[in-house]
C-alpha cells in the first residue's frame, strides 16, 4: 500500500474531461490550493464541481471558472465571484444551489454508505420541487440523494503516509465529509509524517477513505474578509 504521490500533478493525473469532483473548503478556508493549481494547468474541462462555494475571481475554484473548465457547479453560496455570475447569466455555466446542511449531509451519506437521507431543509420552497416528501411526526422532510463523485479533493493540516488526516480549526468544514465520499480521494496536507506519528485518538479522517496523499507547498491561505479590532 503506497498512497504517497509526488505532488498535485501526479495526484490528479487521471482526472479527465467530464469528471465529477468534490472540492473541500468553506470560502477560501481549507481549499486544496495545490490540486486546483494543477487542474488549471492540466486544462481539464467539462467538470462538475461539488463545493460549498465557487472561490473568488482570481483564487480557488474561480481560477477554474476563468479557464471555462467547469460545466456545472453544485454549491450552497456563490456570492463572491463576478465571473461566476457572468457565466451563469450567459448560460455557459449550470448551477445547482442546495442548502449548506443538505450539501454536507449528502457527502456524509455517501461516506456512510447510505443512498439517501431525509432532511427538512427546503421543505415548502423551490428546493423541494420534484423531490419525494415524507412527513415524520407532523413535519415535512425531503429525500436527498447521496452524492456520487469520481474524485474528492481535500486539504488537511497534517496527514500520515497511511492517509490518516487531521484538520486545523475551521479549515475542517467540508473536507472530512468529502474525503469519505469520493470514489478516489486525494488529500493534500501541509505536513506529511510517517504513519504512527499522529495520535490515533486525534485523527479526523481514517486513512481507509484516502487513496492518494502528498505534502503541498506554497500555501497562500488567502483571507476573504480580513476583520480586526484595534488593541485598546
Amino acid at each position, binding site marked *: 500500500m503506497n498512497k504517497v504521490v509526488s505532488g498535485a500533478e501526479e495526484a490528479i493525473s487521471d482526472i479527465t474531461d467530464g469528471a465529477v469532483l468534490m472540492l473541500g473548503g*468553506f470560502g477560501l*478556508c481549507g481549499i486544496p490550493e495545490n490540486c486546483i493549481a494543477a487542474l488549471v494547468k492540466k486544462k481539464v474541462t467539462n467538470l462538475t464541481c461539488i463545493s460549498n462555494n465557487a472561490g473568488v475571481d482570481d483564487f480557488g475554484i474561480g481560477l477554474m471558472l476563468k479557464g471555462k473548465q467547469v460545466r456545472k457547479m453544485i454549491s450552497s*453560496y456563490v456570492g463572491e465571484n463576478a465571473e461566476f455570475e457572468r457565466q451563469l447569466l450567459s448560460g455557459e455555466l449550470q448551477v445547482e444551489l442546495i*442548502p449548506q446542511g443538505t450539501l454536507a449531509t449528502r457527502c456524509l451519506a455517501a461516506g456512510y454508505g447510505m443512498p439517501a437521507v431525509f432532511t427538512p*431543509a427546503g421543505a415548502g*420552497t423551490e428546493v423541494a420541487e420534484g423531490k419525494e416528501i415524507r412527513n415524520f411526526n407532523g413535519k415535512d422532510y425531503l429525500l436527498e440523494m447521496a452524492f456520487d463523485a469520481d474524485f474528492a479533493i481535500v486539504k488537511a493540516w497534517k496527514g500520515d503516509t497511511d492517509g490518516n488526516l487531521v484538520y486545523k*480549526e*475551521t479549515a475542517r*468544514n467540508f473536507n472530512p465529509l468529502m474525503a469519505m465520499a469520493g470514489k478516489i480521494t486525494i488529500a493534500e496536507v501541509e505536513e506529511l509524517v510517517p504513519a504512527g506519528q499522529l495520535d490515533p485518538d486525534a485523527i479526523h479522517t481514517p486513512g481507509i477513505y484516502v487513496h492518494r496523499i502528498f505534502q503541498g507547498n506554497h500555501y497562500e491561505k488567502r483571507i476573504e474578509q480580513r476583520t*480586526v479590532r484595534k488593541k485598546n
Partner: protein
Amino acid sequence: MALTKEQIAQRIAKELKDGYYVNLGIGIPTLVANYIPAGMNVVLQSENGLLGMGPFPFEGEEDPDLINAGKQTITTVPGSVFFDSAMSFGMIRAGKVDLTVLGAMEVSENGDIANWKIPGKMVKGMGGAMDLVASAKNIIVAMMHTNPKGESKLLPACTLPLTGVRCVRKIVSDLAVLDVTPDGFKLLERAPGVSVEEIQSKTSGRLIVKGDISEIEV
C-alpha cells in the same frame, strides 16, 4: 425615531438567556454579539464548524484557518470546539441551537421568510439559511421594516422565493418588535417616538394591536 442597526441588535440581545447556544446570521444579527449582557454565558455557533466564537482578532493576529460563516477572521473563546459541516448542521437540525437570528427581505404574517433569491437579479444562494430556518426552535428576524423603496417587508404573503415556511417567531425591525402569531403580526413594542399608526401604515400584513404599546427601551 427609528432604531439604528446597533439598537436593533441591542434589543434582540434582551431575548438572550444564560446558557443559550445561538447562531447569528450575517449583517445586523452579527452585531447582537456586541450586546450580550455581562456575566451571561451565551455560546455562539458558526455554521462553518465552531462553537464558542470570539471577537475579531487584534490587528496582525488574523488566522486564515479561523473564520466565521461570513468568511470574516475571528477568534475562539475558552471552551470552544471545532467540528465538520455535517455535525454543524446536525446540531442545528436536531434542535440543539436555542436561538437563530437572521436577516430577511420579506416575512409573511404566517411566519414564512424569504431572504435568499431575487429572481433575475440575485443568485448568490441560500448558504445555511434554509437548514437553519427549517429546524431552529426559535427564530428572530432582524430587519428594516420597509425596503429601500419604502414598501413594507411584513406582508400577507411573501412574493420572493421562500427560504422556509411558518418558522419566524419574532421580528425586531427599526420601527417595532412584533410576534408572529396564528392571527398575524402582534405588535409588542414600538420604537421611541414612532406611532402605532405609522407602524400600521408600513405593515401590509395583518397587524394586531391590543392595549397600550410601550416604547422599546434602548
